[in-house]
């Protein structure tokens, strides 16, 4: 079969494109976006996916065309190599450079929104990663962290208010971790000895996963949590309930989980 290699190379774009077409139908596409700002990240992803997708299909198509046309059986003459074309070299250097530069500029606002323009609001909670758990500390009634009325939870069941901006401090007790909220399209690496900030807004109540996205040791997979977003009154109610529980002086007040 003289077109064997041409067809083999044709399978690359075919399978590649097919993967992206069927992925959403098999629920292996993005997790549901629940945040106010996540669509910006999704848009960037889709934009780059289309851009690279078109270039990918075009170059793979060209490869297929040449492999088909110049297969070894029909073309016994050996290939003659040229020393290249100056114009072509310039073109294919400048084109990707301009494209990359465009992407770099195009995403700047999204990056600044996610990582640089920290809102001027009080901290909602401090999250501490440790091998292998996410612990959380809420500032309590006085709104200041590390005071006696803090609420500290180690059960990975973390609540946040929905419908308003949330600001978190992320810390590590031991090694590198990464606080990842896939449904909010946010991920923040945690460096021991440093405070990292993370902010987002979730308009509607939701319950989503928290995972660690930085291989932090053998128990990395155990580092999961659950983020519950609920309206402010419900969140405050939950907080005061946890505060009461934390203050229990009596056996009867200590609930059996």
């Amino acid at each position: 079969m003289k077109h064997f290699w041409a067809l083999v190379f044709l399978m690359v774009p075919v399978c590649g494109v097919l993967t992206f077409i069927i992925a959403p139908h098999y629920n292996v596409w993005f997790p549901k976006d629940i945040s106010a700002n996540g669509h910006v990240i999704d848009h960037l992803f889709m934009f780059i996916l289309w851009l690279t997708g078109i270039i990918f299909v075009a170059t793979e198509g060209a490869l297929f065309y040449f492999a088909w046309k110049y297969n070894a059986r029909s073309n016994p003459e050996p290939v003659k190599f040229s020393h290249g074309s100056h114009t072509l070299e310039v073109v294919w250097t400048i084109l990707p450079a301009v494209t990359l530069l465009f992407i770099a500029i195009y995403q700047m606002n999204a990056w600044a929104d996610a990582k640089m323009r920290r809102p001027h609001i009080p901290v909602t909670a401090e999250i501490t990663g440790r091998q292998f758990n996410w612990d959380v500390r809420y500032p309590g009634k006085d709104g200041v962290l590390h005071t006696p009325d803090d609420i500290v939870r180690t059960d990975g069941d973390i609540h946040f208010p929905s419908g308003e901006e949330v600001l978190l401090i992320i810390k590590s007790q031991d090694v590198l971790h990464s606080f990842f909220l896939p449904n909010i399209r946010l991920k923040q690496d945690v460096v021991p000895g440093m405070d990292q900030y993370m902010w987002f807004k979730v308009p509607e109540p939701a319950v989503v996963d928290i995972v660690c996205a930085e291989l932090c040791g053998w128990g990395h997979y155990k580092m999961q949590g659950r983020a519950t977003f609920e309206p402010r009154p419900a969140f405050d109610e939950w907080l005061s309930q946890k505060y009461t529980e934390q203050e229990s002086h009596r056996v009867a007040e200590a609930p059996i989980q």
Partner: protein
Amino acid sequence: MGIDKETTRQEDKETWCDPVSPCLPVSPSPCLAMRGREFSATAWLCIGLVGVAAFVGCGKADPPQFRLNMMNVVAKQVAPQHQQAIANILGAMFGTPDKPYAMPETGLDQKKLNMAAGPVWSDQAGEDHGLYRRHCAHCHGISGDGHGPTADILNPYPRDYRPGVFKFKSTYTSAEPTEADLLRIVHDGIPGTAMPSFALLPPDQRAALVEYVKYLSIRGEMEKALEDYVADNLDPGDKFDPASNAETKKLILDDMLKPIVEAWQTAKDQVIVPDEKSIPPDNRTVAQIADSADKGRELFYGTQANCVKCHGPTALGDGQQDDYSDWNKATHDFIQATNAKLAEMEALRKDLTKAKGDDAEHIKEQIRSTQKEYKEREAVIATLLPPRHAIPRNLREGILRGGRRPIDIFWRISAGIRGMPMPASGPAAPGAPGTLTQEQIWQLVDYVQSLPFEPASQPLKKGPVNSSAVSTGE
């Protein structure tokens, strides 16, 4: 494989033999002995073996087994036939890691055990099986010996369930924990250690895991009781078989198992309930709390409570740091006793140079048996986690392993921490006198709770931010 027998070279044999080694039994592979022309017949046999081994041997590992606590077995010099007898008895009473048995006398729940035990798999309905091995065994070990594959890299070491000693509980010092205590640890994890929270598991799975932990504890305590009895009461030749001897059976069930099970079942009656009158009121002012904490501070540094001895004058845990927990102490003592054997042998050898005739023979025999025991002990030491000192808690970090609620801290001070150097300051049993009154313990609770917020503790509060480009929110 198209290898011509004339062109067979050394490398061919090696590549053929190597993949065999993990699958075949320990006996050396026949390939290794072959040379040149003799290759073909043996080689094909070998390939056959590889094939068989690949399909049969590698696919299925032997089901995991409970192992005896060799430290106790060797320390007590339990005879091999008695080791076998004990393993058989434990097998009959508790089953295997794949098929646990909830003997009615133990009061354990067979359904819960089935849920927690066995290999890891999920059925078609998505129900998870083999929960203990999925979540716990890699640290706490198949036998609950606290020495799973990841135990060596942890500090603190994972708990060894077999002595039935648990640290963070609501009961009097020497009592077992209640179900609620164990559930709380599984739910909240232990901050400051590698024990994570399992709050995301459904409640019935957590309950199953707690039941399995109790099962491993009761099994471990039973094993120790059997070993100690055999070592103290039987000669190596004596038979130890409850199946054929009703008296032995009665002994095992009534004298050994019953007290162990009772300790677990009565744990809920052993909960320390602080006297309502001693509990500080909810509506205390900041000044009142500070006043109480001040009294607690006096107790902390006083000779009566003497917290300062271990937790240090700074409360950073920098007091006495060379103590051991019960678990590490057992290993430490075992190693010390092993080293003593070495000295013993040395002394015997010295005697031998002076001894004559029958005396010399007798000493030689002693040296031989001491050497044998020394070798056995060394083999066991190689499998143990190196002992570590128990470091008192740094109370300024605000990380309290057993929980941060006032009642948790009250329990910790009142009952001490079982298995640790931390002593009980409250009564040892209901109605007994304690070193401190409940009011004093509550004052200490206030002091402990205030420590992380003292100015001296505060530098820990805030870390540097990664970039000056980030505008400060404050």
